[in-house]
C-alpha cells in the first residue's frame, strides 16, 4: 500500500509540476467555457420563446437535455484527447529514463506499481472533470434544476474517463516512446466505441445481444439520460479492471525478456 501511494504521489506530483497538465487544463477551460456560454445562451432564448407561446403551461425545453447533456458530451470528447496526453508518460518515460529499473528492484509488486500509476492518472483526469463541473455549478446560481440527472451523467463520465486512463496506461506500458503511447491510447479509446457497432455485422441474436452489451455508447447514454444502472457500472468497472490487468501482465513480463 505504501509503495502504491509513493508511486502515485510521485507521478501525480510530476504531472502537476509539468506544463503539460496546466496547458491542457487551460485550453480545455477555454473551449468548455466558450461552448457552455453559447449553449446556455441558445437555451435561454428558446426558453423565453416557449414561455411566451405556452403562457405558463408546464413543459418547454429542459435544461438537462439541452445544456448539460451537450456539455457532458463535449467534455467527454476532449477528455479522450486529454487523458491520452496525461497517461502517455506513465510507463513509457520510466522505461526510457531507465527509472523503471528502480521500480522493478524495489520491494513492490507489479500490481502495486500499476495501481499507483492508475491512481495518479485517475486523480489528474478527475481533477479536470471537476473543473468542468464548475459550469453547471455556476448555473445553479441563476436557475433551479433537478440535480439527479446531472449527477448521473457525471458519474458516467467519471467512470468512462477512468476507462480511458486504464487504456492509456496500458498503451504506455507497451512502449518506450511517449508519442507512440499517445497514438495507441487514442486508437484504443476511440476503437472501443466501435465494438458496439459490430452488433450490426453479426446475425445470431446471442451475438447481437453480446455486442450491444459491450457497446460503450449504450452504457454511457444510460447515464446521460439520468440513470445509474448496475449493469453499466459493472461494465465500466470491468473495462478498467481488464486494462489494469493487462498492464500488470506487461510489467510482470518485462522480467522475462
Amino acid at each position, binding site marked *: 500500500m*505504501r509503495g502504491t501511494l509513493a508511486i502515485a504521489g510521485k507521478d501525480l506530483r*510530476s504531472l502537476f509540476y509539468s506544463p503539460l497538465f496546466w496547458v491542457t487544463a487551460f485550453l480545455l477551460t477555454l473551449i468548455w467555457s466558450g461552448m457552455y456560454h453559447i449553449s446556455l445562451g441558445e437555451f435561454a432564448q428558446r426558453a423565453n420563446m416557449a414561455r411566451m407561446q405556452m403562457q405558463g403551461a408546464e413543459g418547454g425545453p429542459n435544461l438537462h437535455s439541452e445544456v448539460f447533456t451537450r456539455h457532458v458530451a463535449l467534455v467527454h470528447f476532449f477528455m479522450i484527447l486529454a487523458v491520452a496526453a496525461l497517461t502517455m508518460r506513465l510507463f513509457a518515460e520510466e522505461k526510457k529514463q531507465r527509472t523503471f*529499473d528502480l521500480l*522493478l*528492484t*524495489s*520491494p513492490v509488486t507489479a500490481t502495486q506499481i500499476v495501481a499507483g500509476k492508475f491512481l495518479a492518472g485517475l486523480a489528474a483526469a478527475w481533477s479536470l472533470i471537476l473543473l468542468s463541473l464548475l459550469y453547471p455549478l455556476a448555473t445553479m446560481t441563476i436557475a433551479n434544476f433537478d440535480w439527479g440527472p446531472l449527477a448521473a451523467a457525471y458519474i458516467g463520465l467519471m467512470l468512462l474517463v477512468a476507462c480511458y486512463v486504464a487504456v492509456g496506461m496500458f498503451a504506455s506500458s507497451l512502449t518506450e516512446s511517449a508519442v507512440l503511447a499517445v497514438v495507441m491510447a487514442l486508437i484504443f479509446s476511440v476503437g472501443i466505441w466501435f465494438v458496439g457497432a459490430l452488433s450490426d455485422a453479426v446475425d445470431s441474436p446471442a451475438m447481437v445481444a453480446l455486442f450491444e452489451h459491450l457497446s460503450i455508447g449504450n452504457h454511457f447514454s444510460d447515464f446521460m439520460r439520468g440513470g445509474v444502472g448496475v449493469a453499466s457500472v459493472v461494465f465500466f468497472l470491468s473495462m478498467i479492471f481488464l486494462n489494469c490487468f493487462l498492464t500488470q501482465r506487461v510489467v510482470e513480463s518485462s522480467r*522475462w525478456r
Partner: protein
Amino acid sequence: MIEVRDLTKSYGQHKAIDRLNFSVNKGEVVGFLGPNGAGKTTTMKIITGFMAPSSGEVNVAGHDVFEDPVEVKKRIGYLPETPPVYGDMTVEEYLRFVANLKGVERARVPSLVARAIEKTSLGDVRRRLIQNLSKGFRQRVGISGALVSDPEILILDEPTVGLDPRQVAEIRALIKELAGHHTILLSTHILPEVQASCSRIIIINRGKIVAEDSLGGITQRMAGAGRVTIKVRRSPPSLAEGLSRLAGVRGVRASDASANGRGHGAIAALHSAFEIETDGGEDAVERIAAHVVGAGAGLVDLRSESADLENVFLQLTSSEEQQNQGVES
C-alpha cells in the same frame, strides 16, 4: 549472504552468462571484474530480481529471488548502470521517494535521507533539480539512492563511472567505510578499483568465472609468475629451444613485436622478439640474460615485468577468449 548457483541467461542464441557459481559472505566486499560484455550487468540484474534467468538459482539472505522477490528486494540497494533518477525531482525529494518505495519505517526517513546525502557529499545540491546536475553528480545521486534505505546488501554496477578523480577516491573511501556494515558486490573493469576497495575478486569473462580469489591470493598467484621480453638482432633456431630449457622458464613465445616492427624500417626487421614466461624469480632472469649473451644473439633489449593485477587480468580474460574462439570455429 548472496548465493548464486548455476546461473545461466541466454538472449536468444547468445549466452550472456553461463552456469555461474559463486557466493558472497556477510560483510564482504566483492569485486566483480570483467571486460565489456562479460556479463557483469546481466548477473547483477538477475540477483536484484530485475530480470529472470534462463536457469539457475539465486539465494539472498535465505530468500529465493524468484519465490520471494519482495523480501530480497527489501534487503538490496542497487545502483544500475544508468542511475535511475527522476529529472523533475530535487535530490532530497528523490531520496525521500526511494526511501518510501523501499518501505523503510516512516520515522526513519528523514534521518536516512540526511545520512545518504552526507555520505555522498550531496549537501550543496540537495535542493537542486536532478536534471540540472552534471553526470557525475547524477551518478552520486544514484549511489545515494542505493544507500538510502540502509540495506544489508549493496549491489553497485560500476559505481565510479563518470566521476572525477577526487570523487572516485571519495567513493572508494565510502565503499571501504561501508564495508563492515554492508555486504557489497560491485562491478568494474577498472583494476585499481578492486585493489582499492575489495576483499575478494571474481573475474568473469564471456559469461564464465575465470578466477575467484582474495586480493592477496590473486596477488600471490601473480607473484609466482613473471615475464621477460627480449629483443635480439639474430635468432638462431636453437635460441628459443635453449631458452625454454633453462630452469625457471615456463614458456617461450616468439612475440609479434618483430612483425609489427617490420613496417617501421629495415633495422626493426632485423630484430626478433621473444616473450618468456618465468617463475618470477630473479635467477631466471639472470639465466636468460646469460644464455642470450652466450648464444651471441645480439641482445638489444631485455625487460622484466613482475605480473601485476592488470597482467593477470589480461591473461585470464584473453586466454579464455582464445579457448572460446577455438571451440566456436
